[in-house]
């Protein structure tokens, strides 16, 4: 990195990050004193109000990729990646609408809690294993970003940065449980929004924009010069299938993310969860729009000044080092660190819930709750250490591992949750077969494991978009068709939904004790859905240009 892009005074950076970490540890410590039961540890006692929860949801979702990886990809791909990012804001609203409030009624700790009640133990093990793998992948992406931020901030080698940042992070999350993760995430969202948006005003002013007073939406006067410098910047560039593929690969994956669902479950009530989603949309929209202006300005900066940004992941930090005082640049880096911490917090809490509550609920159902909670703490720390170790050899782009994991989640877990909540015919064995087969197929046809077997190519394959467009509809279709078939075959009778399984569905939809066999039990609509999924599956197999 050229010296002109480095922080001129490392001690200022150290001071800012030190203060932030002191606050995070203090919040974690105070929160730990409120944690007395597993409901407190995994769901903050189901007590979080809508504004705090909305901030916490946005912080948990925003992640370090918002500060580093997405800006890098806007720098490389320009506007199509802005479109890719926009659609993520519907994840938590969709999650809340489609199953979040239903699972909040049953006081679930994670989506796998529902899987255990609805499908039984073997299916829970399958889904929990996939979810843990995906959470570790997700935490890995954040760890890599933290390492990069610390590397730039203090000028230390990447591996050293990973160890210091990783251990400090895992420490305060382990201390605080869900209370600490939620209150810290709310505070972190404020820090990251200020760090993303406010300093950009000064940068835009330096670049001659009259819209510096509101960076997220007021940079229209820079557009003519941008089009002159990069005529293709606003081009949509890809055909319709690229944009359509975002739905299976990226919209349906986050819908099943356990750490996002857990934020809905911590709400004080079902109604409060919905209000939290309104705040979430407003807060996240502000932060995301700030990200788009940074991507735009990064392109503008390189095109109009002739300077090169060698590490695209560090565009925001470099712009601030270049245009703003050291203290401001250090605060922006602190904001990036906060973004990473809030998401790792959510990831590790999800791992704790999946192991401590869901997996142990299967392996050792009679274990008392305090012992399960201790296992949850241990799983949380182990998940963090695993992510630190894996981060030593990172993929090229920070977001690659995360986005790839979304496709895997949409393939393995989303059908189980959505069909389980809305369809009584959903069969345990059909779930195990479709989730396992399609999950492994997704891994095989992505270029990360066997590069010679791949659907699509280039970035769409690396990000899991082309693979997801094949395996996700296949997983839905296979689950539906196999469920209908297995439920009608005497040999598979033991896997068919029992009356207790079906009653769970009516109950979580709010019907109380009023059970109706025909409710959520049709097969016409599922068969039509399976046919549509198969059409998308074949469309996904058509070679990508």
């Amino acid at each position, binding site marked *: 990195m050229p010296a002109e892009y480095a922080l001129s005074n490392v001690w200022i950076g150290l001071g800012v990050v030190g203060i932030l970490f002191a606050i995070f540890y203090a919040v974690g410590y105070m929160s730990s004193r409120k944690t007395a039961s597993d409901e407190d540890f995994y769901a903050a006692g189901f007590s979080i109000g809508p504004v705090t929860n909305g901030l916490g949801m946005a912080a948990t979702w925003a992640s370090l990729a918002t500060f580093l990886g997405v800006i890098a990809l806007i720098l490389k791909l320009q506007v199509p990646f802005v479109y890719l990012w*926009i659609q*993520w*804001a519907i994840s938590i609203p969709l999650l809340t*609408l489609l199953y979040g409030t239903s699972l909040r009624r049953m006081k679930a700790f994670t989506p796998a809690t529902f899987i255990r009640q609805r499908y039984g133990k073997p299916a829970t093990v399958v889904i929990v294993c996939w979810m843990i793998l995906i959470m570790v992948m997700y935490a890995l992406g954040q760890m890599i970003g933290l390492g990069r931020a610390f590397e730039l901030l203090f000028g230390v080698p990447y591996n050293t940065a990973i160890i210091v940042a990783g251990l400090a992070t895992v420490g305060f999350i382990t201390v605080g449980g869900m209370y600490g993760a939620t209150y810290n995430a709310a505070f972190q969202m404020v820090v990251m929004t200020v760090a993303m948006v406010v300093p950009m005003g000064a940068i835009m002013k330096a670049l001659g924009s009259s819209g510096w007073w509101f960076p997220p939406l007021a940079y229209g006067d820079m557009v003519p010069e941008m089009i002159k410098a990069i005529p293709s910047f606003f081009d949509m560039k890809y055909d319709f299938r690229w944009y359509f593929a975002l*739905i299976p690969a990226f919209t349906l994956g986050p819908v099943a993310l356990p750490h996002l669902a857990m934020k809905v479950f911590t709400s004080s009530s079902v109604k409060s969860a919905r209000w939290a989603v309104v705040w979430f949309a407003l807060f996240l929209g502000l932060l*995301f729009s700030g990200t788009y202006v940074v991507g735009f300005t990064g392109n503008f900066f390189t095109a109009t000044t002739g300077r090169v940004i060698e590490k695209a992941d560090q565009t925001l930090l470099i712009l601030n080092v270049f245009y703003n005082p050291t203290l401001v640049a250090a605060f922006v880096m602190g904001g990036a660190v906060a973004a990473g911490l809030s998401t790792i917090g959510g990831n590790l809490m999800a791992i704790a819930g999946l192991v401590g509550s869901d997996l142990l609920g299967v392996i050792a159902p009679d274990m008392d709750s305090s012992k399960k909670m201790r296992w949850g703490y241990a799983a949380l720390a182990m998940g963090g250490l695993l992510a630190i170790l894996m981060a030593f050899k990172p993929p090229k782009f920070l977001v690659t591992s995360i986005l790839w994991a979304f496709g895997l989640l949409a393939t393995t877990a989303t059908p189980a949750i959505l069909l389980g909540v809305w369809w009584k015919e959903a069969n345990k064995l059909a779930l195990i077969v479709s989730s396992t087969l399609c999950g492994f197929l997704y891994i095989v046809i992505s270029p990360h494991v066997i590069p010679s077997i791949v659907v699509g190519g280039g970035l769409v394959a690396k990000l899991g978009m082309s693979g997801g467009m094949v395996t996700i509809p296949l997983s839905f279709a296979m689950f539906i068709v196999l469920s209908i078939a297995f439920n009608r075959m005497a040999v598979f009778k033991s896997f068919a939904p029992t009356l207790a399984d079906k009653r769970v569905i009516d109950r979580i939809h*709010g019907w109380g004790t009023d059970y109706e066999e025909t409710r959520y039990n049709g097969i016409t609509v599922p068969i039509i859905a399976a046919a549509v999924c198969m059409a998308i599956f074949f469309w996904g197999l058509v070679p990508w240009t």
Partner: protein
Amino acid sequence: MKEKLYKKEITLTIVFSVLLLLMGHSASIFVLFPVLQQGTLWGFPIQYIVPILLGWFGIAGVCLIMTLVCNKFDDEMEEYVNSLPPETETDSESVKE
């Protein structure tokens, strides 16, 4: 009453799912209908700024309406459930597959 509530729940879920998908994926519409890629708003090409605005204020607006409507629906559902007679042992056993 319960048939009406069931239909209403399904309808609300489908309508809001579609609205959220439209807000989050509005860029696809500009790809599907390139003729719409004309004109500017606040200095930006329309196909750039409209998806950003819908992805922020559009989603927030849909979420607000969804919250008001679904919370009201919950009240109706609660009212219905409260109107039911208490469940007895006989009722439980009569619900068989």
